[in-house]
């Protein structure tokens, strides 16, 4: 089935897909804003949460920050390759980005495993409830991003739909930025 003409128009001067991803990000900001806003209100009201937060492992958090930032760099390079029309290279860089996402999830899994086995579970207290909920929603976004990225890489490899490389990259940066907020709030502020 061919694309509707509607999809090919660009009255606002911005490609439709880019417009759409920004709107998706706007609604995602509201979601994370809700979680983090609620968390902050509680955090400010309960000084004792600092003690709970002291149990998080900031070195692992830092490692994950580093991993995500590196993967974002790969996403940028993928976009550049796509701009040059080099679909093969763009696809490979997207796979690298995905690998970053996977590494992030592995570290996360290790961390949670450790914490849960040491009695810090989602029901321990409200701090831990927020900790797992906020990071869990973020992790779901990482997973979703990886899956979408694999699809995009699949077509990019055949030099098709190269504009999608940019779109998925923008989304990935967003996932990254959310982590940049989560990291200090959950790990560093003690």
């Amino acid at each position, binding site marked *: 089935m*061919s*694309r*509707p003409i509607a999809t090919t128009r660009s009255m606002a001067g911005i490609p*439709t897909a880019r417009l759409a991803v920004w709107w998706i990000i706007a609604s995602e900001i509201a979601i994370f804003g809700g*979680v983090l806003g609620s968390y902050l209100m509680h955090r400010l009201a309960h000084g004792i949460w600092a003690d709970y937060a002291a149990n998080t492992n900031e070195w692992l958090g830092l490692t994950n920050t580093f991993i995500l930032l590196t993967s974002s760099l790969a996403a940028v390079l993928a976009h550049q390759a796509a701009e040059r029309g080099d679909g093969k290279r763009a696809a490979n860089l997207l796979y690298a980005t995905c690998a970053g996402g996977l590494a992030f999830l592995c570290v996360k899994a290790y961390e949670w495993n450790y914490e849960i086995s040491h009695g810090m579970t989602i029901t321990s207290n*409200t701090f831990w409830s927020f900790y797992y909920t906020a990071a869990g929603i973020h992790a779901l976004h990482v997973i979703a991003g990886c899956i979408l990225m694999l699809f995009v890489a699949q077509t990019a490899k055949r030099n098709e739909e190269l504009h999608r490389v940019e779109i998925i990259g923008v989304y990935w940066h967003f996932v990254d930025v959310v982590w940049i907020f989560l990291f200090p709030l959950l790990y560093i502020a003690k």
Partner: protein
Amino acid sequence: MAESIPVGHGADHADHGDHGHHEMSFTEKYVFPLDHKMIAMQYMFTGMFMAIIGGFFAYVFRMQLAFPGIEVPGFGVVTPAAYNSLVTNHGTIMIFWVAMPVLIAAFGNYLIPLMIGADDMVFPKINRLSYQVFLVSAFVILGAFFVEGGAFGGAWTAYPPLSTKAEYNLSGLGSTMWITAVFLEFVAFLLGGINFITTAMNSRAPGMKMWDIPMVVWMIVIASILFMLSVGPLLAGGIMMIFDQNLGTAFFDPDRGGDPILWQHLFWFFGHPEVYVVLLPAVGIVADVITTFSRKKLFGYKTVLYTAIGTGVLSFTVWAHHQFIAGIDPRMANVFTVTTLLISVPIAEMLFVYIATLYGGSITLTTPMLWALAFIFEFLIGGVTGIFLGASGNDIFMHDTYFVLAHFHYTFYPIAIIGTFAGFTYWFPKMFGKMMNEGLGKLHFWLTILTFNGIFLPLFVLGAAGQHRRIYDFQNYPELAQPWMQDIRQFATICLCVMLGAQLIFFYNVIKSWMSGPASGKNPWRANTLEWTAASPPPHGNWPEGLPNVYRGPYEYSHPDREEDYWPQNEPA
């Protein structure tokens, strides 16, 4: 009128080759369609089906209130638990499964591409996905009636701890299904909203500038943006609630370090903008109907637009007027009183623009016009009573009484029912290619409007007399069991029964007109907007002969230099 043919026009027809000429199977066309009109119809009829269910619930619980303890015909004796879940799901269904799908999704999907001169939405597959998620959500909310413990009965606002503790709300799985269904419904509308916004921004016909966009399109787009920016926190809250219900977290449990008021903030931070999310599309529909049937230019196109945007911005600042007695700081209450009073200014402005549009017009009282006029009149009552409630001192008494209930039915009913009927009867000729029967339409109109006022005007009186909401049997409260009060309750219930019966006229009229009504032709109302230049009903691709160009605004009626009293947007100067 200056015309501009923007760049990219040449590219327009490049893709046109096989679009619309490809033979589709039955499933492709009706079950999993990509065509925006068919998806609109899916939303429309699912919404109407849910409205019948929501209406039936209202009938059952109103019968219980008027004649406590009787065996309600068609249902049986209403237990307290059944009463609670019927009331809860009546509210939830009417807002999220009727008002939203019909006003935003059905009209949005049908009208946006047709009114901006495009052949479809920009992302047909996301559009289809949106409906599918919505359909699943409808199954989940209705499915809760068939699980053990029954459907959720903790009120549509789902305040914890009532909503989070099964020992209070008596429906374990049912309450999780309720919040899950609401969550899915929100996801469906986020998906749909992306399409509405990007399509309207990017896919307008060559020549259609910002101020040439028909009001209803603007309004649906603004509503989608409002929805997108307000629903996120509640999505997060929904996850927290599911965890509180099932994992044993304590986000909303004060005994264990949580805060029940947090939910109220998350709910109303969305809940108040949401009322404008449903209001704006109805306001847009009314703008298009009244200009067509008074043959006048909309008085203050930009005024309506700016007031809509102003309302949208302000709507994020008023939410705590629902929480005046929830223990918020009285100084905060003052702030929210002021913002609530402020927001009535742009709303009033909008209504004044409509009245000014009518003034001096050559008005024809067709059925859609009657509905549109009724909207203005009835919504006015809803809006004005909102100001009473916004005054925090007054609201300490009024809160959670039938006065509040009457207030929001005087807003939601004009929006979801009256506005929808205005739009449906106005665009019916386009959707089905047939004219509706005017006599039946007017009969249905008058019966619906009179009974609507018969139901809810008396409830203001009961509310002012202190009758609380969400009570199963008023006979248990001596001060509320007085005979005059019971008389009023019975009167309201009888009006409701007549109103529900009157809807049969509507359904008969729809089916009869669809089958054997007179053909409508392309433009029966002699209106200006682009949808009226397509065939009725428009084929796949909308204008197979080539998409229209636009040369002027949508409301050029009775232009002094023209013989015709209308001037289609696509007619070269």
